[in-house]
């Protein structure tokens, strides 16, 4: 509901303004409207005037925890609005000791899922002028007519797969939690690929990865990619070649995904920002699935006390190769 969303925005503003204007935090990370109505970009609010632009709507997909690493260099204390995935990303950074818990205040926002502009135009056509939201349905407004659709069908792929919409870590929960969800089809795409032959899978990935522009947007938004120097930019040894060819595409994408083994929080930001639509989460989910199968169920970011599977071992671990 349009009114309900703006009501929510008002409530969020009210909750954070006390802390920001009272000087308890130096900076608030939130969202503001971008150039188009279907964009909500990160907001770095330092004053009451900045805070007026704050929104909490159905397009706040950007993961704000990612900005903490840089912003904590310049600010003593930061307030962050966190959805389910932002909170898990925060836990991830906490586990890597990149952020200090006492320097951050988290405002928890249970997240109903974010809308996908690509899906909206698919259903409403490219002359889509806006949307109205009402209890679980979205009305797509075009020049000629309005079309009503269930909200669930217009969500980003990552939100359709989301199991933890509520923040797992917060200082203040701003709305009523929505509760965890079951996603039986979470690994469906991975399982379908597993059923193909090796050559078919290679052809599939060679084709998908051939679109890669090497813009590294996937790395840039990723909450587990927090190295100060990434292997793709390292000059000596120069791991990542610049040539446009399959072998370099495989090098980048395999290593990027592999660095997330047991660390990927399944937020799907990489896939969302990919300008050429490479199904990056299929690689990430394959690793999540294998780690779960081999070394026990583990969901990164849920509990910062639980050790990531690749940082530990058991003497009786199974292996994916023959140990004779």
């Amino acid at each position, binding site marked *: 509901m349009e009114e309900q969303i703006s009501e929510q925005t008002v409530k969020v503003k009210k909750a954070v303004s006390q802390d920001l204007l009272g000087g308890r935090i130096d900076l608030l990370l939130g969202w503001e409207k971008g150039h188009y109505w279907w964009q909500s970009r990160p907001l770095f609010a330092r004053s009451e005037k900045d805070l007026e632009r704050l929104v909490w709507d159905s397009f706040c997909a950007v993961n704000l925890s990612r900005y903490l690493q840089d912003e904590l260099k310049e600010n003593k204390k930061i307030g962050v609005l966190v959805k389910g995935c932002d909170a898990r990303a925060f836990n991830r950074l906490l586990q890597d000791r990149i952020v200090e818990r006492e320097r951050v205040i988290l405002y928890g926002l249970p997240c109903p899922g974010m809308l996908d502009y690509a899906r909206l135009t698919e259903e409403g056509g490219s002359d889509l002028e806006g949307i109205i939201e009402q209890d679980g349905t979205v009305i797509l407004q075009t020049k000629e007519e309005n079309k009503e659709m269930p909200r669930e069908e217009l969500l980003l792929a990552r939100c359709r797969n989301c199991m933890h919409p509520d923040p797992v870590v917060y200082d203040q929960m701003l709305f009523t939690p929505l509760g965890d969800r079951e996603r039986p089809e979470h690994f469906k795409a*991975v399982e379908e*690929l*597993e059923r193909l032959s*090796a*050559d*078919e*899978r*290679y*052809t*599939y*990935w*060679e084709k998908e990865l051939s679109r890669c522009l090497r813009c590294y947007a996937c790395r840039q938004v990723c909450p587990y990619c927090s190295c100060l120097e990434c*292997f793709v930019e390292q000059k000596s040894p120069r*791991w990542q*070649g610049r*040539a446009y*060819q*399959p*072998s*370099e595409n*495989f*090098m980048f994408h*395999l*290593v990027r*995904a*592999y660095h997330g*083994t047991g660390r990927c929080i399944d937020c799907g930001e990489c896939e969302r920002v990919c300008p050429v639509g490479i199904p990056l989460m299929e*690689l990430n989910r*394959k*690793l999540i699935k*294998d*780690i779960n199968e*081999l*070394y026990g169920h583990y969901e990164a970011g849920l509990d910062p006390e639980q050790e990531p*599977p*690749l940082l530990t*071992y*058991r*003497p009786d*671990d*199974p*292996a*994916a*190769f*023959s*140990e004779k």
Partner: protein
Amino acid sequence: MSAALNDPATGWEPLIVAFCCNWCSYAGGDLAGTSRMNYPANVKVIRVPCSGRINPMFILRAFQRGADGVLVAGCHPGDCHYSTGNYHSRRRLSAFKRILEFVGLEPERFEVRWISASEGDKFAEEMEAMTGKIKALGPNRKMRDARWKSKSLSKQLK
């Protein structure tokens, strides 16, 4: 893979890169040598301090630069010179092997084996077995750098 390339008459020989841990597998290879055991010359051994030293990028680089198969050999679990290196590599390389297979590499092309310093015979056997499997599969083209030229391959392709 074309059958012509796989034909023993054309003289194609696989290139296998074996990363061997200094304390067990490399010594195992040494024992195979001093005991006059034969293993195929297709295997090129690279000595590493520990199987835990293996960066997955080593494996990808080997495939990029013309390896038809890659083998990582380390101490048996529990016998690591650094106590826990191979326990960690068991987890890491299991995950990496799975993802390599997921993007389409044949499972036989990347293997991990535990070979101790006293297992010269096992070293020779494993190298023999790996070479046999790769010969049956034929040359690897997957993940190979397009600029890489093999002498024997380019001769056959003429």
